[in-house]
């Protein structure tokens, strides 16, 4: 294959291979699976955000008919270990926090797991939870990360400071940078806790197979938690098997362990299959959230719009456990100055423990938070310089070959000039205002990495084989969370081996049977497993072409694989059915499979305090444009137009790429306007979808997607990842549009009607 070869399957808008079963309602999600004799698991959770556990009495629960196990911290072979996130390279640097299965002596947030029950029926398990008596002594908690940073603040976790991590990025001398500035804009931004709100709550089922292996079938983004689960049970890693189901939405919320360790313990203790599905309330109360940030930004520019300096201080609320907080903060650090050419930059970032719900990965992973700040700042600078918002951005965008403030060189195409132009064009004529509705429009650009941080030494494997009849099998330990992860591997393989996509069968997400492909996180699967699958398929192709060349007496270079045949590209009409070549290879004992290992660039970080050099393999760049109508009376914001333009490198499946970008835009719109997990002194005030408001079909416009295909990504065929990048700059685009409509800027997400009305009143009062 060379670059000039015309692609037959890549780039086409075709339904995914998994879409049929999903449309028929046949896909077996985690909670759709049952086994004879199974028990139902339930979790007892703390009612206090901060309390000492004086005693736990389980005897009444244990005596209830139908209860088969009641477990507390003392029953967990290894209750405390280190959080890992599927990485096999030990990084150090404060990157791995405490992982505690069940609360022991203290509870640190409301909803922390205290005890587990398994019973013959769900109702019995629920009844048993009521019969467990826990005596708590409430303790003072700390709920504001700024307060938690103070030296006299109570410690959230015994024996460790509340400040988990401090990072800095330093480029040039910001003092000098600000002295050169004609205009300085300084603001404080706040963003809230956000729930992933996947429609499938956390769920799984575990059993012990005939060989004594603890087997867990679970909705997860990371099957490689099997190692951590084995550690909890003190079992060798190869005695725990995790099978990932098709996931009913992940968005980062199924990146950490959810039900797996609970299930493993209950099935281990009872010897019976156990099923456990969280209720929606439990999911909102107890599982991870997107990090709230306080962000103090100061940006300086010359009168002509050229940026001179940026200084930022970021504080993120990690909640009660570390989980992925240091990583998320590191992403924010790299992204904090945005995709701009700024001679002098200083960023300080802190992530801090509190007694709030713990926070961890959420689609965008630290990039959307800072994007809201840096793009609001850019808009403010546009106003102060009198430049159009797109002009000041286009003047300052980084270009290929230039470096981020961390020193990482952007080695690939930076398409922001194009994406900005496309968005401006697509916004078209401004909608006319009517009555008390004010119309405004705004844009914002952003960058988000794809692929994990290079010091994690990330790898992915994929196994491609061709069967005797010419059908093709892929085995890859990827998790499919709805983004088309599995289907894109089928498309790549079909392209390379010249077979229709229906000839491919893919087996995914099984730690016992599929080669490890790493996590479905960090927008990495197309990049990592796409490349691994491409490598494997090319090896199989090479074997077939070599054999066919001998059979046909033609130079291998002039052969191609098309429609289940090996053909002569020169048009001699010579060809062989693919399966005939396969049979001939099999007779010769030539391997008709290949397992490929793809390695991301490996770098080591010199020190974690100061973030320098290459941190990511590459970035995806894009721009959002929004037109809004703001009701000056009620403060209600209606998004009339939402436009997303991204350089996707190469669209492997146009339907999937557009779907990701549309979905990402609305995920970002929810972040902008309505979504907020409200915690009052550590107590969740928004435990259902009546309080936690997701966008409905009535609230959203048709998202217009404009793809740029530079072909300059590091994924297969030059693709870039879009899953997370598609969210990044929506919130500032909408906030900038609101400013454009009513002349007031809101610095806190979400942009609720109350905030709009209040800001308008303050503006009026100021005269």
């Amino acid at each position, binding site marked *: 294959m060379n670059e000039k070869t015309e692609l037959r399957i890549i780039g086409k808008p075709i339904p995914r291979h998994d879409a049929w079963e999903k449309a028929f309602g046949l896909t077996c999600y985690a909670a759709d699976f049952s086994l004879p004799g199974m028990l139902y698991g339930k979790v007892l959770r703390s009612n206090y955000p901060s309390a000492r556990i004086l005693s736990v009495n389980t005897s009444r629960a244990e005596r209830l008919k139908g209860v088969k196990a009641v477990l507390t911290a003392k029953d967990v072979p290894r209750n405390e270990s280190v959080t890992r996130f599927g990485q096999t390279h030990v990084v150090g640097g404060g990157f791995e926090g405490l992982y505690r299965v069940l609360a022991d002596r203290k509870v640190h947030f409301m909803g922390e797991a205290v005890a587990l029950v398994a019973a013959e029926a769900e109702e019995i398990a629920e009844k048993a939870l009521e019969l467990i008596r826990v005596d708590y002594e409430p303790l003072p908690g700390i709920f504001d990360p700024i307060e938690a940073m103070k030296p006299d603040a109570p410690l959230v976790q015994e024996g460790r400071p509340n400040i988990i991590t401090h990072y800095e990025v330093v480029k040039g001398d910001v003092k000098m940078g600000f002295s050169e500035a004609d205009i300085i804009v300084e603001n404080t931004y706040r963003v809230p806790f956000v729930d992933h709100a996947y429609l499938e709550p956390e769920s799984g089922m575990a059993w012990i197979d005939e060989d004594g292996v603890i087997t867990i079938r679970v909705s997860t983004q990371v099957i490689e938690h099997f190692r951590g689960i084995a550690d909890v049970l003190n079992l060798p890693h190869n005695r725990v098997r995790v099978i990932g189901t098709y996931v009913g*939405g992940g968005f980062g919320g199924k990146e950490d362990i959810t039900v797996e360790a609970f299930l493993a313990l209950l099935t281990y203790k009872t010897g019976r299959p156990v099923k456990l*599905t969280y209720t*929606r309330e439990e999911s909102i109360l107890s599982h991870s959230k997107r990090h709230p940030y306080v962000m103090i930004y100061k940006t300086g520019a010359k009168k002509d719009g050229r940026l001179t300096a940026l200084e930022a201080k970021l504080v993120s609320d990690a909640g009660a456990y570390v989980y992925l907080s240091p990583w998320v903060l590191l992403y924010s650090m790299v992204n904090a100055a945005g995709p701009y050419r700024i001679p002098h930059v200083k960023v300080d970032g802190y992530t801090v423990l509190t007694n709030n719900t713990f926070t961890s990965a959420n689609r965008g992973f630290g990039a959307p938070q800072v994007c809201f700040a840096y793009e609001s700042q850019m808009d403010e600078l546009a106003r102060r310089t009198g430049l159009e918002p797109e002009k000041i951005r286009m003047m300052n965008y980084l270009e290929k070959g230039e470096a981020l403030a961390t020193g990482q060189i952007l080695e690939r195409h930076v398409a922001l000039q194009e994406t900005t132009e496309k968005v401006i064009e697509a916004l078209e004529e401004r909608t006319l205002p009517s009555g008390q509705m004010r119309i405004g429009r705004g844009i914002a650009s952003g960058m988000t990495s794809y692929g994990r941080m290079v010091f994690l030494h990330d790898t992915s494997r994929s196994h491609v084989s061709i069967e005797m009849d010419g059908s093709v099998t892929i085995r890859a330990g990827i998790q499919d969370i709805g983004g088309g992860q599995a289907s894109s591997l089928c498309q790549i393989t079909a392209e390379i081996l010249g077979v229709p996509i229906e000839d491919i069968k893919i087996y995914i997400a099984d730690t016992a049977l599929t080669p490890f492909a790493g996590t479905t996180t960090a927008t990495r699967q197309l990049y990592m497993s796409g490349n691994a699958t491409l490598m494997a398929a090319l090896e199989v192709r090479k074997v077939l072409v070599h054999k066919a060349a001998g059979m046909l007496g033609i130079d291998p270079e002039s052969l191609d694989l098309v429609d289940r045949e090996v053909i002569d590209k020169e048009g001699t009409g010579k060809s062989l059915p693919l399966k005939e070549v396969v049979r001939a290879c099999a007779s010769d004992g030539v391997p008709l499979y290949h397992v490929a290992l793809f390695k991301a660039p490996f770098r080591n970080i010199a020190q974690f305090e100061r973030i320098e050099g290459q941190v990511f393999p590459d970035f995806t760049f894009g721009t959002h444009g929004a037109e809004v109508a703001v009701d000056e009376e009620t403060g209600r914001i209606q998004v009339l137009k939402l436009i997303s333009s991204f350089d996707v490198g190469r669209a492997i499946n146009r339907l999937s790429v557009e779907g990701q970008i*549309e979905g990402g835009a*609305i995920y970002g719109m929810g972040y902008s306007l309505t979504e907020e997990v409200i915690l009052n002194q550590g107590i969740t005030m928004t435990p*259902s979808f009546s309080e936690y408001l997701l966008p409905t079909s009535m609230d959203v416009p048709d998202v217009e997607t404009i793809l740029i295909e530079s072909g300059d990504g590091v994924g297969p065929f030059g693709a870039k990842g879009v899953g997370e990048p598609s969210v990044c700059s929506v919130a500032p685009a909408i906030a900038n549009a609101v400013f454009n409509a009513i002349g007031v800027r809101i610095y806190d997400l979400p942009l609720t009607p109350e905030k709009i009305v209040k800001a308008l009143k303050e503006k009026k009062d100021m005269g």
Partner: protein
Amino acid sequence: MKKQITLTVNGVKRELFVASNELLLNVLRDHLELTGAKYGCGIGECGSCTVLLDGEPILACLTLAMAVDGSDVVTIEGISGSDGRLHPVQESFLNHGAVQCGFCTPGLILTGKALLDENPQPTEGEIREYIRGNLCRCTGYTQIVKAIKDSSVKGKA
């Protein structure tokens, strides 16, 4: 207290013993092994459990099985042809890429079908209004609305 009820599910008459507090969703999923209807929130806020009751979309997680004794229930498993052919709404969802994680898909396809049965040529606004009780977290609804609209156009032609 268990009581016998009769439901016609996907065209087949079923006699079932159900408890007085048993929900239609659990009866479908646990007794009849029809897992296409999903538990998403349990309190009628997300629409993932949608099935058709005498042709109308209802929330199976809020419906007591006893209360619908004698009714006709259609689930996602019941709308494709007996030869395995896709219903036009299902086919349109595939062709538009309206299926991502797929968890909301059964409910949205059934709701879309109910709309088209009632109003074969809905406007985009009518579609958005009709499906507003079915949340989708992946797609942003753009392709779902197009899929329903497109299958209505095809239905007419």
